[in-house]
């Protein structure tokens, strides 16, 4: 007999009767994941709107719609939302919660109540961050990096943003802790580390970064707060401090954070490519271990953000050298994915389109990252639009595109229904074209010397800003259309059963779709590899007791 949310103790407190309270208090990992998605995509659109406001202002030189100070607040708001509220919690909070326990055959995460607490901690952080739009002297105008001494001296309400970032960091640490324990303790019997789906590997590597790197930024933010209100003199040169120290401490976290964002995204890629190529993945172990090594080396490269900061030249050299070694495991992953397509049977469904599109955009994002890893070249390109274009290609064209790929891939799992495939493909093409038109011109503008965070610019750069604006319009239209298609599919799409993609991993072998409470009817026994296909068909089948039938 299947259980319901009412008669089980699946709420953090009590047994509420109302559906609304059941959701608010739920400790079920799937519901928490869905709530994360709802909140995060809401903020995503707020940040997109802010970015569009800036593009609009930059359409022509001079001042049109907003003044310089508002512009400075706008890019801070955009950065804070996109980084701290959206992309850092991002894939782990949504799919790490919804899918990861299903993939390892667990009933939930190890600490469901902690998971519930973490979600509400995240909401608290969001509220603190956003409330400074209305409280105090306006939203922070420091940029999302809060560089000292600017953040210490500005009159805007930086304290709220700093506290919010701290609280969100706390939520991130707890998520990482929860996932680490879950992956170590709750894997189905027989599932060794090298039998885990690669998405779980991505989440695992990320969880370590969340756990180990986030405290550094937490400490840094606290120091900044103490500096600002008690004047202890750590970063402020007027009090004998050193602003470059802040940059170091900030990037010790924020660079690994980049890998924290991309590793689960790579995990999604590793799920989608074999399923839609209908064959086993190429180089499973290499992909798994490259995630781990990226997470490791990623700690040692933060200094490449500081090539022009006044840091010693020998330090620049060492950081540059190490940075190139992050590119290598990333490159190997790409070749493994491409090799997976070789002699497969490739189904160009929407999730696969997003995955392949991301290979193009992330390759550009990654290779332009190599450009600015080169010290002499970066000295010219640092803090220009080239850098802006680079990280949007990597973060939006990498992480967020793969998040969208996952959104389409696991859509039938979560909703039990299917979206309209041709429309979803149109949405992809709109996004892909708009995205490239929006960001590619910025590489050129940056190379020509257009600095970032400029409210006004020299007339020579107008053509690039205008091209970007047109791209932005197409891209936003694509985003809105994509969510329209998905919501439409959720409301009235056709029901498609538990495994519409004929995938192999455990989350596609549930008794019903959407998945029931506590997931698999019985604990599966895993004595097979995650992507076993033979002649284009999944090898492993289960009976209703999750026992293998051959």
């Amino acid at each position: 007999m299947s259980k319901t949310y009412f008669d089980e103790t699946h709420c953090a407190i009590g047994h509420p009767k109302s559906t609304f309270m059941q959701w608010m208090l739920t400790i079920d990992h799937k519901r928490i994941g869905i709530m994360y998605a709802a909140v995060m995509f809401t903020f995503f659109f707020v940040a997109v709107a802010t970015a569009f406001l800036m593009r609009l202002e930059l359409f022509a030189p001079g001042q049109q719609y907003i003044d310089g100070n508002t512009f400075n607040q706008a890019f801070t708001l955009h950065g804070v939302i996109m980084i701290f509220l959206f992309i850092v919690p991002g894939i782990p909070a949504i799919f790490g919660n919804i899918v990861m326990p299903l993939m390892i055959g667990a009933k939930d995460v190890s600490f469901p109540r902690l998971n519930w607490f973490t979600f509400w901690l995240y909401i608290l952080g969001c509220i603190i961050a956003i409330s400074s739009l209305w409280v105090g002297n306006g939203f922070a105008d420091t940029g999302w990096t809060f560089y000292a001494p600017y953040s210490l001296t500005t009159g805007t309400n930086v304290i709220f943003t700093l506290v919010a970032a701290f609280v969100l960091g706390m939520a991130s640490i707890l998520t990482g802790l929860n996932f680490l324990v879950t992956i170590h303790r709750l894997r189905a019997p027989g599932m060794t580390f090298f039998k885990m789906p690669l998405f779980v590997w991505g989440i695992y590597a990320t969880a370590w970064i969340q756990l180990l790197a986030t405290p550094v930024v937490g400490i840094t933010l606290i120091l900044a707060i103490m500096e600002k209100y008690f004047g202890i003199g750590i970063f402020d040169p007027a009090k004998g401090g050193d602003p470059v120290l802040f940059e170091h401490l900030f990037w010790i976290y924020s660079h690994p954070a980049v890998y924290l964002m991309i590793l689960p995204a790579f995990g999604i890629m590793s799920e989608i490519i074999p399923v839609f190529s209908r064959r086993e993945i190429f180089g499973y172990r290499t992909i798994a271990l490259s995630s781990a090594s990226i997470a490791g080396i990623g700690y040692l490269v933060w200094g490449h953000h500081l090539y022009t900061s006044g840091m010693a030249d020998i330090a620049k050299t060492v950081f540059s050298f190490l940075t190139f070694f992050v590119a290598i495991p990333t490159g190997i992953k790409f070749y493994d994915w491409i090799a997976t397509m070789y002699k497969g049977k490739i189904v160009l469904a929407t999730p696969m389109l997003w995955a392949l599109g991301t290979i193009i955009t992330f390759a550009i994002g990654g290779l332009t990252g190599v450009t600015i890893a080169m010290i002499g070249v970066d000295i010219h390109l640092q803090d220009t639009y080239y850098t802006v274009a680079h990280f949007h290609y990597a973060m939006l064209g990498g992480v967020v595109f793969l998040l969208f790929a996952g959104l389409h891939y696991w859509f039938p799992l979560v909703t039990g229904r299917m979206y309209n495939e041709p429309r979803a493909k149109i949405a992809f093409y709109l996004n892909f074209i708009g995205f490239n038109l929006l960001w590619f011109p910025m590489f050129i503008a940056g190379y020509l010397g257009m600095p970032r965070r400029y409210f006004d610019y020299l007339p020579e750069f107008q053509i690039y800003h205008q091209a970007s604006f047109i791209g932005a319009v197409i891209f936003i239209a694509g985003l809105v259309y994509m969510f329209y298609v998905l919501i439409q599919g959720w409301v009235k799409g056709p029901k498609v059963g538990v495994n519409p993609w004929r995938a192999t991993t455990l989350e596609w072998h549930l008794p019903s779709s959407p998945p029931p409470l506590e997931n698999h009817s019985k604990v599966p026994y895993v004595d097979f590899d995650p992507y076993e296909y033979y002649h284009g068909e999944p090898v492993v089948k289960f009976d209703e007791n999750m026992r293998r039938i051959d």
Partner: protein
Amino acid sequence: MSNSLQGFDVRAATFAADVEQAFWVNFWISIVLFLSVVAPMIYFAWKYNANKVKNEDVENVTHNTALEIAWTLIPTAMLMVLFYYGYTSMQVLRTMPAESESIVVKVEGLKWQWRYEYPANANGHIHKIGGAFQKPKIDDKGKVIEKGTMGITALYVPVNTNVILEMSAPKNDVIHSFFVPAFRMKEDVVPGRTTKQWFNATEVGEYDIECAEYCGTDHSYMYSRLVVLPQKEYDAWFNSAEDTPKGNFTKTGDALLQRHGCTQCHSILTDEMKIGPSLKTRLSKEQVLHVIEKGQNKLGYDMGAMPAGLATGTDAQEIAAYVAGGLKGEKPASFAACTACHGEDGRGMGGLSPDLVGYDATLLGHVFKNGKEGMIGRMPAFPEIPEDEISAIAKYLENIGK
């Protein structure tokens, strides 16, 4: 604020070429790596499309040791090449010249202006210049009424000389970054620290300075200008107590034409005929006819003298009209008589023969060295004018025509 794009096509410091080279090595390696991923991806997506492949043809290839070693080691080697170029270009950028062989200027970045302080000159005067960029004026509807200007906020340096910038910011200020796109150089200006960068400008001219580290309200107006002067021009200014160099410093070439007395015989901005021809236009119809008839042997090009009578009658008339018109409009067939030496575009084949359209540096160099004789009269030689000044004059005259 300059009117030309000074970051991409301008390469105005000694090390700019090194940075450029590193960038383009990186560019082509990136293209190779990009194609090594994307080309097979597109090919496989087409070749192994579900429509074409039968289930039994699907093969589970999961390992290929040789291939895996190749796609690990080859990109690694390529990346090491890039590291090397990044490192060497940094070495060039960051190896400071000896202070004894350089001009050391103190740069101060503060909200939102750049200030420059020079060492004392022979008279004990210390130049302290710089200041804020004048923001553009905007009406209520957001239209720009008046463009922003630099005022006197320029950093003046001599050409072909090492300049070291010792940069700092006041302790109660914030971080700025001194960025000269045309020189490919940038370094943060940090309160409480002194950071340094150096350059050796190779071309007389003006270049934009931008603040590249976000510093608040007027970050996007924290411009200044780097004016590279010929050595004499610089010395004259440096040894004076003036804040700005004499003459119209925004047009270095103009100042040079004044100093060398060119303007006594030539008008520059108008067509007025003084003792010599106006320099606004290159050649009049009469001058061209005269040269065609008499030839020209005074300029001293390696190509040698131009013989008389290469064209006659209506052909000569046609050519003269075409050349005097700046080689615009339909090219007469008779112009073929000229192209062997002057090139199809009449630009003198990159300095091999006189430019018929404008005054390029080679032409000016020959005229200054040898003097000139023609229809209008005789111009004496000015062999003392140095090469950097000649190129500045050529650049200036080139821009007048536009």
